[in-house]
């Protein structure tokens, strides 16, 4: 039995969808139908399933119908025809009242622009779903706090959403969905509004949470990089139609048609395989003005690293190894001036990944990724590059 199963789902926008539906069956395209009947085709004949504990990413460019499709699952958008089954129960047949209760029980949802309630604190936002189910205040608070801790926002529960950064706001959005303990998570471009590095952090965190929770997740994205990282399976959509469905490897190695090929090519070359997409945040940084050999050494020890990059005037000034720092400490140096070396490699964020391999191979230190202003934006270590590539099923 599949957890979610969608059968021949159509969504047509307009006052007389039957007409457009007939034209669709005759094989007319979305644009032709728009011209002839002024009806928009959101989703056409979509069928797929999601198994328990699986992450399925629905991917497509904007306007491809992916957001419409996910809203048809919990009927925020009413499907024109077709069936949606959750746990073998026909969601499309539920009455309004039954649907409301069904949503409370089964669906947590996370939105692209967070959709947090501005007049409620973080905790009150997270508690919202429980509050409307009339859970006891005590239990509500406990479960709310637990969800806040899960997403790493402990200590922020009394703040208002406007006081938080985008990444933190979306953590609240995630916690709001988690607090419900619903078995299905619908995530509509949940991380798309975030900065690339924060997005990566959130993806990692979602994967970590998923390991303990084993929820059934439908994740909408327009980003192949994200789809490949998160998805157990990927569904590619174009113009409301599902063009291919499969694992990351299947999509990359045997694209179903030209559209998928282009999608994979475009995104693959320019985005998936660049320094930016495999870099990680440095565990620790040394500051030229304030750190001497002793504090640099301590930073390396606590972070468990053998070398550290040094920042000066917001720019990357050099690198210090643990061995050099220890020696300088013996000599009694007070600054990092004499131990700092420029004997490391740095690359631009858009450097293709295949150029990174040789650089890492004959170097024991991390690669620095610097932008055009010589600011350190991330580092690449062997492990992170290999892991990044392995996840993507590319060699």
């Amino acid at each position: 039995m599949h957890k979610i199963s969608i059968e021949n789902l159509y969504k047509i926008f307009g006052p007389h969808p039957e007409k457009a539906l007939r034209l669709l069956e005759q094989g007319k395209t979305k644009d032709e139908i728009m011209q002839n009947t002024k009806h928009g085709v959101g989703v056409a004949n979509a069928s797929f399933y999601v198994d328990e504990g699986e992450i399925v990413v629905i991917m497509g460019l904007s306007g491809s119908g992916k957001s419409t499709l996910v809203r048809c699952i919990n009927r925020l958008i009413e499907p024109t025809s077709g069936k949606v089954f959750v746990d073998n129960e026909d969601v499309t047949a539920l009455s309004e009242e039954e649907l409301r209760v069904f949503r409370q029980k089964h669906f947590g949802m996370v939105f692209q622009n967070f959709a947090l309630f501005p007049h409620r604190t973080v905790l009150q936002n997270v508690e919202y779903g429980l509050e409307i189910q009339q859970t006891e205040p005590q239990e509500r608070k406990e479960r709310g706090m637990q969800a806040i801790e899960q997403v790493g926002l402990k200590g922020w529960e009394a703040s208002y959403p406007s006081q938080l950064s985008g990444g933190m706001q979306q953590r609240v959005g995630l916690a709001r969905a988690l607090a419900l303990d619903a078995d299905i998570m619908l995530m509509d471009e949940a991380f798309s509004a975030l900065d690339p590095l924060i997005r990566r952090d959130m993806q990692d965190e979602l994967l970590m949470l998923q390991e303990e929770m084993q929820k059934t997740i439908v994740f909408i994205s327009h980003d192949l990089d994200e789809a490949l990282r998160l998805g157990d399976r990927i569904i590619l959509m174009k113009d409301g139609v599902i063009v291919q469905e499969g694992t990351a490897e299947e999509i990359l190695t045997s694209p179903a048609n030209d559209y998928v090929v282009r999608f994979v090519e475009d995104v693959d070359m320019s985005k998936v395989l660049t320094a930016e997409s495999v870099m990680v945040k440095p565990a620790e940084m040394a500051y030229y003005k304030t750190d001497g050999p002793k504090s640099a050494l301590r930073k390396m020890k606590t972070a468990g690293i053998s070398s550290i990059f040094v920042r000066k005037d917001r720019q990357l000034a050099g690198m210090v190894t643990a061995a050099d720092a220890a020696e300088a400490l013996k000599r009694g140096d007070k600054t990092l001036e004499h131990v700092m070396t420029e004997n490391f490699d740095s690359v631009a964020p858009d450097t293709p990944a295949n150029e990174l391999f040789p650089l890492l191979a004959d170097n024991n230190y991390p690669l620095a990724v610097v932008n055009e202003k010589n600011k350190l934006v991330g580092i690449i270590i062997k492990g992170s590059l290999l892991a990044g590539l392995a996840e993507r099923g590319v060699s």
Partner: protein
Amino acid sequence: MEGYKIPIGQSIEALIDLLVDNFSFITKAFSNVTESGITILINIMMFFPPWLLILFFAGLAWFFSKKEGIAAFTLIGLVLIWNMGLWEPTVNTIALVLISTMFAIVIGVPLGIMAALNDIFYKIVMPILDFMQTMPAFVYLIPAIPFFGLGPVAAIFSTVVFSTPPAIRLTCLGIKQVPEELVEAADAFGSTKWQKLFKLQLPIATPTIMAGINQTIMLALSMVVIAAMIGAKGLGGEVWKAIQRLQPGRGFEAGIGIVIVAIILDRIMQRVGGKQE
């Protein structure tokens, strides 16, 4: 063109006659309740010595606005009114404004909510509001008399008719302005219509609703003054007397009193609304 006159005026008169003949028990009941309400409110306010009430209002102004300037203005303005010998008419005016505003809110906010949530109702109500707001205010005085007779109740009736539209309009606007995605989120978590209304839409719409209530109060004040013509007492009555007796000085004193009351009410209400943001 004047051979046949379309009987608009006659029809309206016939309608009013019909209402007066058949529903006067309702208007009588309303009249009794409202009149005793006004009397009680005025008696309470007149029971205290003016200086105590002035201090109370100044304190209220400070409590809502947290601004010394507004509190000081309230204090000085009301003392000036007292000094001009206009304390009793001012109390009358404030009582009429408060009661009218209360009616306007009780009627206007629920209608505004309904208009925001129901498209058909919205389409019916909006042209009526346009009509009500464009009609010269004086016209409302006329039907009020056959229903309620001369006096404060007729004044309140026409004031409520005149000042309710902004409460309806801005309540409706405030709720419609709640971002679609927030409503969608509330739906996605399985909220009932009432939960959505009280936990999301009304709290977010509050500043806008407060702005509407502020307008309602201002319109009520202006109408209460005009309603002096049909026997409402108060500062408007003083102006009306001054016109009839050709006493420009007295008229201006009462006018200044109205301005002071208007500024005090406006500033306090603006703060009450603004605080929510």
